[in-house]
């Protein structure tokens, strides 16, 4: 690495106020989300200068999102209908998993609770008791408002009154990620973010402090900054390459390391959910947007070849492919730290977890929230930096266990891949969580952050990790009364969902895409 010797080029971005010069490296989803958030939320603390090269494509992670993105958009003052129309977005009520525990199985991990969430115990305890007593009881899916709506292709905005059954679900979006970054770019540039086009060829470190001093572009231009946000994607230009922060690899638990993606025409009704369908050496996603359906096969190169994966995917997509299949390579894991010296890695440069639970954009958002809340002064405090790294680690670790659960909790041994994940050893933290659920349906407590109790319940039960017992308090209601309540709830959810508008017609009224390209 070069050091800051010789002639100091006066960057066009030099300023003489006290605001920090933030250089965002990379203009994909992570880069523009960061630029938009910083310009909007900390206008008095920073200038944002984003460097991107149009020659480098964006990965466009996360066509499917989690409900948290609504909070992000709200903070940025984004109008939902405008955003959805611009990104050709659809609504998302959860993720459907097909063929995971056994071929032929399917369940939805919903955004929302099972039952009303109002009783002394969570609904699944009562459901469990009924099942264990041999009562005819519908699958747990049928007691989720979100799942019921999803299977009926219905959508409505949740009711804010918590006493109603229509308040028990939440939603996110499925959108064209290649349109989200440009959408945020307009916003960020309006608020004062500066953009420079160019390929970065060098990262200069200060030889005294070891901090990043500047990035140099192919054109010779040199951009100095006080703080560098690495949004360069898998290449991890600053965090990985220049600063050499080690990468902790989780391939032994999450063996998928490739994906082949191809969009196609939509042939079916517009589903308000994403699908994750098990494949011989991994799984494939199906994400319905307004104008097309995104597809991709996430696989392990140890268990299949690129050619076979591509053929397998093209063979099963529902409509005419509308682009050439594209292969991505990755490794599951994360950098040991995401904030090192004066560089913060946001997005793929900080780590990668496969898109099975649509966490990519969530992780970007978590890093941005951490950066905004812990935004430094010129002199970076180790307290802020350590806290940021602690928060990001906790997010990664929690999601990691949740993802591994999907693979490990399977009965499949029909392909070498599924046999491997079924029999592999998993982190102790996950082993304990599964065992606790298996006994009496209890969930390890986690009150803040991602994937709360209902998410774990959905995946455990969906993947046939069924409790052998139940909480003793579930025995309190007399059985006939309990069964009556369960049936009433089922009917209530069903009739409420049936009264809701069709997903496509809701979108056509609310946020139709602007040009039918």
């Amino acid at each position: 690495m070069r050091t800051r010797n010789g002639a100091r080029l006066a960057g066009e971005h030099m300023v003489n106020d006290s605001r920090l010069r933030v250089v965002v490296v990379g203009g994909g989803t992570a880069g523009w989300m960061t630029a938009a958030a910083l310009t909007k939320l900390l206008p008095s603390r920073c200038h944002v200068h984003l460097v991107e090269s149009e020659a480098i494509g964006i990965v466009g992670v996360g066509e499917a999102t989690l409900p948290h993105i609504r909070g992000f958009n709200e903070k940025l003052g984004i109008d939902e209908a405008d955003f959805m129309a611009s990104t050709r977005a659809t609504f998302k009520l959860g993720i459907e998993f097909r063929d995971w525990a056994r071929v032929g199985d399917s369940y939805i991990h919903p955004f929302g609770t099972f039952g009303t969430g109002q009783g002394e115990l969570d609904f699944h305890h009562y459901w469990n008791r009924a099942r264990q007593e041999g009562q005819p009881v519908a699958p747990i899916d049928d007691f989720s408002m979100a799942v019921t709506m999803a299977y009926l292709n219905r959508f409505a905005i949740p009711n804010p009154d918590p006493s109603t059954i229509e308040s028990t679900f939440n939603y996110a979006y499925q959108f064209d990620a290649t349109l989200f970054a440009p959408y945020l770019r307009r916003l960020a540039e309006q608020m004062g973010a500066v953009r420079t086009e160019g390929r970065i060829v060098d990262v200069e470190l200060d030889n005294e402090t070891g901090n990043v001093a500047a990035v140099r572009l192919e054109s010779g231009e040199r951009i100095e900054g006080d703080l560098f946000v690495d949004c360069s994607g898998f290449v991890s230009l600053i965090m990985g390459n220049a600063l050499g922060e080690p990468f902790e690899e989780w391939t032994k638990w999450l063996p998928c390391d490739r994906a082949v993606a191809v969009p196609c025409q939509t042939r079916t009704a517009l589903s308000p959910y994403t699908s994750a369908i098990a494949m011989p050496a991994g799984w494939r996603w199906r994400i319905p947007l307004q104008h097309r359906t995104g597809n991709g096969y996430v696989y392990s190169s140890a268990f299949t070849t690129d050619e076979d994966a591509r053929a397998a995917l093209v063979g099963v997509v529902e409509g005419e492919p509308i682009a050439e299949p594209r292969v991505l390579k990755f490794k599951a894991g994360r950098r040991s730290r995401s904030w090192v010296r004066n560089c913060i890695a946001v997005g793929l440069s900080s780590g990668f977890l496969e898109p099975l639970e649509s966490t990519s954009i969530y992780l970007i958002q978590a890093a941005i929230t951490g950066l905004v809340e812990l935004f430094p002064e010129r002199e970076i405090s180790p307290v802020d930096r350590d806290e940021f790294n602690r928060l990001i680690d906790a997010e990664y670790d929690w999601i990691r266990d949740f993802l591994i659960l999907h693979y490990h909790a399977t009965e499949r041994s029909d392909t070498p891949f599924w046999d491997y994940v079924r029999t592999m050893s998993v982190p102790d933290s996950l082993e304990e969580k599964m065992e606790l659920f298996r006994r009496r349906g209890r969930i390890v407590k986690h009150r803040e952050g991602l994937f709360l109790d209902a998410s774990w319940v959905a995946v455990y039960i969906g993947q046939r990790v069924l409790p052998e017992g139940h909480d003793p308090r579930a025995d309190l209601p007399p059985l006939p009364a309990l069964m009556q309540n369960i049936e009433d709830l089922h009917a209530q959810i069903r009739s409420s969902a049936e009264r809701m508008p069709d997903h496509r017609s809701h979108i056509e009224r609310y946020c139709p895409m602007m040009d039918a390209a």
Partner: protein
Amino acid sequence: MTLDRSISKVVVAGGGLAGWSTAAALKRRIPMLAIEIVSSPPPADSIVDRVISTLPSIMDFHADIGLTEADTIVRAQSGLRAGTLLDGWAAGRPAYVHAYGNYGHAIDGTPFHQQWLRARKAGEVEPFDRFSPAAELGRAARVAGTDSAVAPEIGYGLHLTLERYLQLMRAYALHLGVTERPAEISGVELRGEVGFVDKLLLSDGQAIRADLFVDCTGPSAKIRSQLGGEFIGWHRWLPCDRLLFATSAPEGDAQLLDRVSATAWGWQWRASSPASGSIGASYSSAHAGRGEVIATLPPSLEFAEIPLRQGRWAQPWIGNCVPIGDAAVAIEPLEWTNLHLVHSHVDRLVSMMCGSDFAPVELFEYNRQSGAEADRIRDFACLHYIAARRPEPFWKEASSIEPPESLVHSVSLFAERGRLPYYEEETFTRDSWLAVLLGQGLEPRRTDPLADIVPMGEATQSIAKYRDAVKTFVDSQPGYQQSFSSLGQHA
């Protein structure tokens, strides 16, 4: 594979407040359990049986087990408490109130304390606790009779009249179907397998067996201590090792706020409700003799002294024995957490009730949560010491120790920019932490940049407006005595 059989018989050991509260709650919430209580009188070193001040969580406990305010306040002759007035903790600073409820209100989505800190840097602003409606009500001896947007979250704890409250809890437990065995525990026999209690030997010559033994015998943990394992001592962080207690007759007007004053060798308290009063001290025997401490307390009272070894079991629940309250966590009553811990432990036991295998994975999760909870309560108590500024040797030592790691984390984040971390199993709210941090004069190096979104003039205006609203609200509420007697009439 089939699951282990359910637990059917539970013995609760100890006939003090912890024991009777535990027995009543278990029976009420899991009625299929057969609950027998060995109701030996509370041991001399029981803390929970001597502390009259409780946290607002007691109200939830009562609601969960089906007790009404007519029972718990009127019939049991309890008083209300809004918080604690802490004085003398930081030399040269005014006394401050830690009350239960909001301190200020968010200003344009930013935390109140950040705006308050900004306003302070810019000029004069009233002390932080003046923006707590609960603290102001407490100071004015008024009780919120109406809901208000100014004070959305006020919580009241109770001042117990101990013997009345114990009678109530006993009568209620018996009414629910708890069976009483009035005897002393004379011995504990273990099973062959490690970590299991076989039976308790009783003073009446009988022995008593159960699936699960719940140890409510106070800090000595008569049963749990037989099973071994590590007890984590907190002496280096919480240096007081003696408690003095006296019950005083009600004197003067009842107070909504307890007074907790730092002294040369620890601290002392005074609490007074319409029906009873409590005076006592917590001190370090290495820094003062009993006589010296007693000399600072009212001469007419009889003080009981108990030794205190603060700390907790590393793994409270082992095999078929789970300790509750003081038997699991021994801590001085600085923030009145003793009975709160009884309630919290019982609630967790109900939520995590296992089967007759006592599967390690189920106990592990119970112990993980309980340990995390106890450690954060320890941190909150320890905060009072490390944030203290007094000249005496006791305080010099206490404020110079290296705090537990999790407390260092909280305090250093706060010191940097007024941020507080989130912990699972936290007992005290962010506003409680802020009340003590800011009350004792700890201030962050800088404020949160996000707070700058609100223009300074707007912030000071909003702060002043809120202060006025608190005043108006407090002035319009009825006096404590007056509202208390009307409560008596309604019940």
